[in-house]
């Protein structure tokens, strides 16, 4: 469970988060949505200690992590993994070796054993047949899936995916969506997805958090979203170019 209590964060004069209160529950798929530059990434980075709030508290599983040192963050970052939008795979290693790497470094697992385990994780994302290919040889959506497989190797309870379908075509996006559903439904993970991909949002989300103007504008299940009469929400959901929404 990740809890934000009155979290504020500014960069220079720009207020990105303004007293945000939010609770992200376990084993749910929570989508954090909003226009580009509203602070979705900033919000989730607070959960893994890449940013700390100017004021307010952040709690992970009931522990106040707001003032944690880098050393204190280590165990938290094993339980909760952030997968970035851009591929952070190593170009010079096969997909299998990329997935095996964290186990070899952090799990101190021997090389051949790590490779076997890696194959299993690639299977979990449906890519076992491409294990010996290089990142450059596979599609962008497959690189994304490999990044997720790599994140799974440390057996986290929670995955945060920053814009996993941005830049992917519809079919590739749907494959990533299916993987997201699989993570929560079959593997029992907590999944937080940063997105502005509406199709993906309504397809798999248990819950949607809509960020607008440094605050949570709406927080609820997809149905509540569709039913909302808030003109800003309506404009976002409808994808209208004009309306009350300011970007």
């Amino acid at each position, binding site marked *: 469970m990740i809890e934000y209590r009155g979290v504020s964060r500014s960069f220079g004069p720009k207020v990105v988060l303004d007293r945000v209160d939010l609770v992200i529950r376990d084993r749910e798929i929570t989508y954090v949505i909003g226009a580009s530059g509203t602070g979705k990434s900033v919000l989730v980075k607070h959960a893994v200690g*890449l940013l700390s709030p100017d004021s307010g508290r952040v709690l992970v599983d009931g522990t106040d992590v707001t003032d944690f040192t880098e050393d204190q963050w280590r165990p938290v*970052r094993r339980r909760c993994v952030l997968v970035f939008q851009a591929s952070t795979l190593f170009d010079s290693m096969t997909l299998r070796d990329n997935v095996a790497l964290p186990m070899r470094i952090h799990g101190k697992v021997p090389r051949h054993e790590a490779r076997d385990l890696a194959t299993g994780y690639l299977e979990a994302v449906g890519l076992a047949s491409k294990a010996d290919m290089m990142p450059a040889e596979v599609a962008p959506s497959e690189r994304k899936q490999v990044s997720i497989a790599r994140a799974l190797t440390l057996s986290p309870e929670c995955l945060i995916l920053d814009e996993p379908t941005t830049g992917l075509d519809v079919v590739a996006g749907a494959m990533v969506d299916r993987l997201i559903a699989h993570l929560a439904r079959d593997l029992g993970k907590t999944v937080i997805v940063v997105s502005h991909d509406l199709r993906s949002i309504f397809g798999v989300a248990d819950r949607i958090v809509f960020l607008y103007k440094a605050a949570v504008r709406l927080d609820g299940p997809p149905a509540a979203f569709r039913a909302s009469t808030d003109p800003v929400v309506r404009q976002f959901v409808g994808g209208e170019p004009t309306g009350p929404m300011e970007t």
Partner: protein
Amino acid sequence: MELTAIPRAVGAFVLSAAEPPRAWAVLLSRSARALVRRPPPRDRLLSQMFDIGNRSVVFVAITLGFLGAISVFQGVMQASRVLPDYSMVGATLINVMTREFGPTITALMIATRVGTGIAAEIGSMVVTDQVEAMKVSNTDPVEYLVAPRVLACLVMTFVLTVFAVLVAVAAGALVGYLRFQIGFATFFSMRLVDWADLWEGLVKCAAYGVAIPVIAAESGFRASGGSEGVGWATTRSVVNASFAVIFMDFIIASVIYLVTG
């Protein structure tokens, strides 16, 4: 205007000017701690050292070669105005190369060739989120990226400086012999080099060798906002590192002068 405006502006300026040196100190101590706690693997260290040498050796050779040749030429010109005795030209060149120009000019070359490389490499990792990705996978970017470069650069600054001094003196000797008929035996004279000069050279090498990668890495970590940010980081790196080299040169020379009289 309020009365407090000027002191406040001065205060803000002092604080902002003190910010980079503070960041360098923090980065330096974190790298040192990482080096002690977990020394980098030898193959990574060797490949860094090879890379540093490979990038700068030609550059250093050409620059210091010409510098040695020009120094002899100028030295002879100056000496001949007083009295036509060239017997001290070689000894003077060796002295000034050992404690001053060898380390300092080499360091300036390293700052441009190697420092910019470090800043660009780290800067592009920062703007593509790779540094943050390292952090969340519990890999310390300082331990992984900075510490090996600091150690490699420290060692290679010594190596390149020794090489630079040899090239400069050889080039100088060649000009002295071909143009002014100074014999090699006369030229290669160590009589003006004492322990204090060697120490001065060594201390400077150590200071530059550590400062350049630290300053470059810090510039890289500060990069933001795409490839433009990487460009800024490399520029800032070469400006700051060069300035730091000149500044430390002055400080170290002054201290040694005060201590040894």
